[in-house]
């Protein structure tokens, strides 16, 4: 595949450096390769020492791996970011309105803008949430919206992660690492800071406390240290100065949530939970869950505790409802969508199914409820066998899949060995919704380290980069 069909973030088609990359390119050309090699090694050691690791499922238990960090940043000009930021705010606001709507009056369904059966029949739809008022009407307090830049230079939303999006700790640690290793880069240009993210998150969580108290008790609920994102849970709890709790640390009595402390039970107001709905409350959802808190749903429904994110947000980030998000924006906000959607084929639709089956080698096919890059088919890089196997899975249950044209994810030069080579990236900004919508500029840039690969997930051999929004 010729590289020229991709958008390169750093270089123009004629090989000249784009203006917003110039200070970095200048620095790169002036810095001795030995120093860069040395600092890249230093970064690895530091990440190991700080323990920024993630567990990989399917490997020997307790396997911890370092997420590869690349020192070439993903640079975004401020004026470009400001448009993105407005688009993100618009999109997440509409998604929150949608969630409130489907659990209350269902106006958008009545108006025929979103097919009713796709919402009410969705496995992520939670009947338990019908008629429940959540503080401020906010359901998805933390959203991670995955963006890619196509060959046309335009950003597209790949998916909205509204359940328990992860990765923000890498965004923060990547910046810390870059400032530690290359302070001179930050002295010569204005790179917008990101390290106040934990403050914004804490503010957001405070705002949704159902009880009117001076300082509500907020906890971060983790599945525990075997979870792949445990490092991040601990990191965020520490940065916000809140307790990191496991299910066994909490109990519910009289619809009130308490945590077990050395001084006896203490009431909890807000639970920032990093556990999926299914495992949250064994009394309400999966009875075999050892991770959850019995009675939590009941306390939540009684309005005695806030959950961030709320239960049932999965219905809005489900891939089968993704095609309707632009319609949601028009319906609730009366605005035209600022961010583009990727054209999507719904395989429940016989016409789309027929087209997809005829064009599998060109398309990306995903499970509507998959995440983490597990179980997807990337047509152009898949083998014949993989495609045929996948075809059988689709035919068995077409409604579980969507297909999209293979996007030409943009490229950023990346160190592979000691040489720079272009690699595909995506961008996940984190959008916080409380009384207002907040975010830090940029987000987490993920990079597919294998040549030609379009899969950026860390579980699939992806790495990360610092993301700079420069004025």
């Amino acid at each position, binding site marked *: 595949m010729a590289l020229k069909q991709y958008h390169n973030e750093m270089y123009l088609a004629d090989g000249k450096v784009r203006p917003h990359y110039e200070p970095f390119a200048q620095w790169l050309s002036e810095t001795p390769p030995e120093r860069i090699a040395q600092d890249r090694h230093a970064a690895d050691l530091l990440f190991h020492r700080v323990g920024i690791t993630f567990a990989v499922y399917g490997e020997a238990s307790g396997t911890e791996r370092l997420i590869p960090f690349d020192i070439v940043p993903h640079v975004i000009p401020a004026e470009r970011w400001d448009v993105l930021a407005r688009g993100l705010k618009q999109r997440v606001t509409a998604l929150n309105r949608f969630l409130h709507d489907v659990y209350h009056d269902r106006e958008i369904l009545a108006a025929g803008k979103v097919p009713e059966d796709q919402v009410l029949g969705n496995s992520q739809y939670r009947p338990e949430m019908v008629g429940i008022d959540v503080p401020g009407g906010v359901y998805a307090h933390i959203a991670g919206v995955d963006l890619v830049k196509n060959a046309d230079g335009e950003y597209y939303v790949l998916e909205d992660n509204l359940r328990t999006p992860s990765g923000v700790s890498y965004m923060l640690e990547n910046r810390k690492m870059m400032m530690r290793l290359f302070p001179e880069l930050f002295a010569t240009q204005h790179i917008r800071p990101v390290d106040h993210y934990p403050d914004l998150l804490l503010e957001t969580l405070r705002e949704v406390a159902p009880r009117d108290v001076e300082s509500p008790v907020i906890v971060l609920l983790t599945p525990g240290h075997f979870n792949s994102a445990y490092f991040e849970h601990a990191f965020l709890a520490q940065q916000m100065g809140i307790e990191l709790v496991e299910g*066994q640390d909490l109990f519910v009595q009289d619809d009130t949530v308490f945590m077990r402390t050395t001084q006896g039970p203490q009431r909890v107001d807000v639970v920032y939970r990093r556990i999926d709905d299914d495992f949250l409350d064994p009394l309400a959802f999966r009875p075999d869950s050892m991770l959850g808190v019995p009675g939590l749903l009941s306390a939540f429904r009684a309005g005695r505790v806030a959950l961030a994110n709320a239960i049932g947000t999965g219905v809005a980030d489900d891939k089968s409802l993704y095609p309707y998000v632009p319609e949601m924006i028009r319906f609730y906000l009366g605005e035209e969508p600022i961010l583009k959607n990727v054209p999507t084929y719904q395989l429940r639709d016989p016409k789309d199914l027929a087209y997809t089956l005829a064009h599998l080698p060109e398309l990306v096919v995903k499970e509507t409820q998959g995440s983490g890059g597990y179980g997807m088919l990337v047509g152009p890089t898949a083998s014949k066998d993989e495609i045929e196997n996948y075809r059988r899975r689709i035919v068995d249950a077409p409604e579980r899949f969507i297909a999209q044209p293979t996007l030409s994810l943009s490229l950023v030069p990346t160190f592979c060995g000691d040489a720079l080579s272009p690699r595909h990236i995506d961008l996940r900004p984190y959008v916080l919704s409380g009384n207002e919508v907040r975010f830090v500029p940029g987000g987490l840039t993920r990079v597919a380290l294998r040549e030609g690969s379009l899969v950026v997930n860390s579980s699939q051999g992806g790495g990360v980069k610092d993301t700079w929004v420069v004025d």
Partner: protein
Amino acid sequence: MLSRVASNLYWMSRYVERAENTARVLDVTWRMSLLVKEPRLQDQEWFAPLNITGTLFPFSGRHSLVCAKEVLHFMALDPENPCSIYSCAKQARENARAVRGALTSEMWEVVNSTWLEMQQMDEARMNARGVSAFFDWVKERSHLFRGVTFGTMRRDDAYHFTRLGTHIERADSTARILDVKYHILLPSVKDVGRAVDYYQWSAVLRSVSAFEAYRKVYRDAITPIKLAELLILRDDLPRSLAFCMRQVSETLEIVQNDRSAETLRQAGQILSQLRYGRIADIFASGLHEYLTDYLDAMQELGTHIQGSFFSPTLPR
């Protein structure tokens, strides 16, 4: 603070302290083994570390010979031995990892990088750098851990439970080290009070970093009774039983709750026996017997601490 977190912090620092004390016991044994003695007594001191830590039984299950090489490996590096320095470093790190949010980043880095380095260690490397150098390294990591704890941690419950673990473990281990002489057969009766005996007692003193303290306090030759007095009853020596128990008792006062009265009473009882005890009485009834009773009481106190603070609070 969360009961689970308190428990992890307590065990984290117990394991760090245990690794250090195991290194101390092995170091002192190593030094004693270098003393010239009759061939028939060769290696007899290597029973001591096994007896002290109560691991003679699991050891003999897998080894037929008690000798320096085997015991050193078993106590320092053997992943199968839950009391080995290796296992302690691992346990400390596992406990720390479970409660990273409650640690300062410096504390985590110390515990984590100790474990990372420990994994690189094998018999060849340990011998190459010298056995004593390895023990020094273990002690230094433990010193560093305590220093970082002291220097970076807010004086909240997390700090208190961390310190509680350190002092409970040390109160236990000094008593075991003091008992080491009981487990080592004296070379022969005629050696009592002679050079070999002197070296053995001074090795015990050095193993708890109390050699200089002894000289300063007594300005006298080393005698078992004075040494025992120093390590049991002096409350200004940081590794003595009295000192450790005072710390334990004071910490328990700070973290007490409405279920901890019996725990505090037990700690107070052990402390007052140390505070008002007389060394002559202790020797009259037998040092080994005294230490055995003391260790039993410590065991029970540990169980009560578990029950008062770490067991999940059941509603109503």
